[in-house]
């Protein structure tokens, strides 16, 4: 199960914790939609994510592409080892861009 908490503001940060799988779509989408309204940029903090699979990754990619198409920059930070491993395996940076996932 995915838990989210948001530090609001013009540049909100959404802290993600738990598991990102098929079951996380609604909670992640709701959290991002609420935080992104009128935001200049949105930061997703993965420091609490213990598990992610291709469904969780797909939801993240879709959200990033949607926000970018609306002119809202997105940044992902503090990737845990499981998240980093899956993102590398699936070449997520090529899908969302280095602006979202900067090269370390």
């Amino acid at each position: 199960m995915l838990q989210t908490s948001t530090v609001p503001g013009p540049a909100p940060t959404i802290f993600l914790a738990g598991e990102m799988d098929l079951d996380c779509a609604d909670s992640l989408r709701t959290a991002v939609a609420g935080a992104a309204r009128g935001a200049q940029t949105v930061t997703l903090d993965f420091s609490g994510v213990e598990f992610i699979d291709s469904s969780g990754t797909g939801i993240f990619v879709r959200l990033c592409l949607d926000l970018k198409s609306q002119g809202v920059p997105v940044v992902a930070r503090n990737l845990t080892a499981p998240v980093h491993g899956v993102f590398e395996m699936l070449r997520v940076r090529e899908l969302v861009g280095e602006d979202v996932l900067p090269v370390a």
Partner: protein
Amino acid sequence: MRAEAWTGWVGPFRPDARPRTRLPATGDAVAPRAGADEGSEAQAAGEAEMMPCSLHVYRYRRGGAGIGAVVGAYDPGLPEDDLVAQADEALERATFMCYAVAQADDFVEDELCFVPCGDHCEILSIHTNGWRRHHGDHRRSLVEILSDLAAAVACGRLRLFDGEEIAVEAGAGDELLHMAIDEPRALARARRAVDARLAAEGLDPALRRTTLLPISEAVTNLLLHGGGSGELTLRRLPDRVRAVVSDRGPGLNFLNWIEPPDVSGQASMGYGFKIITENLDVVGLHTQPDGTTLLLDRIV
């Protein structure tokens, strides 16, 4: 891997035979949904009836046994002599060969891979049936997917089973765990239950993580594309732990690739199976229009 245009086909693989009006394949009776194929050539051409993309696997054995179907039904209209010749060459050269049957505009109609596997040759084919990926879509192409499948077969990481073989393999060893899967929330429960059993079998945390991920992918596929329910069984064989994930869905027909977003609110990226084949020691697959079974082996 070698890929080249193959212009020598006649019959069902003829490059100008697009789209097929009939395929004895998985999901044979399913028509594409309205709006599902924006950007496809065939839709632009106003084709009234299109079949889904379809995966076929045929098995060739030397010595007069000929070619039989493993995934999908055997099409009697296939140019069998050509298939046999290519399969023989793949076996003699001990290398797998891929051919893209392409249109003049480079649209790939069929991708065929001949993969030598010891005493036989597996022939994998995805027929695109005129479907194209959505423009700007982040999903993988069917050719990438098939190439990954063929490479996994060539490396021995993916084994393809017919109905009799899978019945034996899925029942081998001792049962450690059995769960019914019928909702997304079951994913987390399944991971926790499997993790506990893997720990009891002596797998260290790192190995458990790389085992749980592909099992989770397989269960997700079951929920999204396998009819929404099925079973997960964990079994212990002398040299390995095996997860058996089975459903009674429509089989591997790639409808998820061409359909718009589903219950998860997103279209399938096509990456789940890549994770499955790249993170396990051996994967077994049996798929037909009445269901799919995956064997996920971790050698211990």
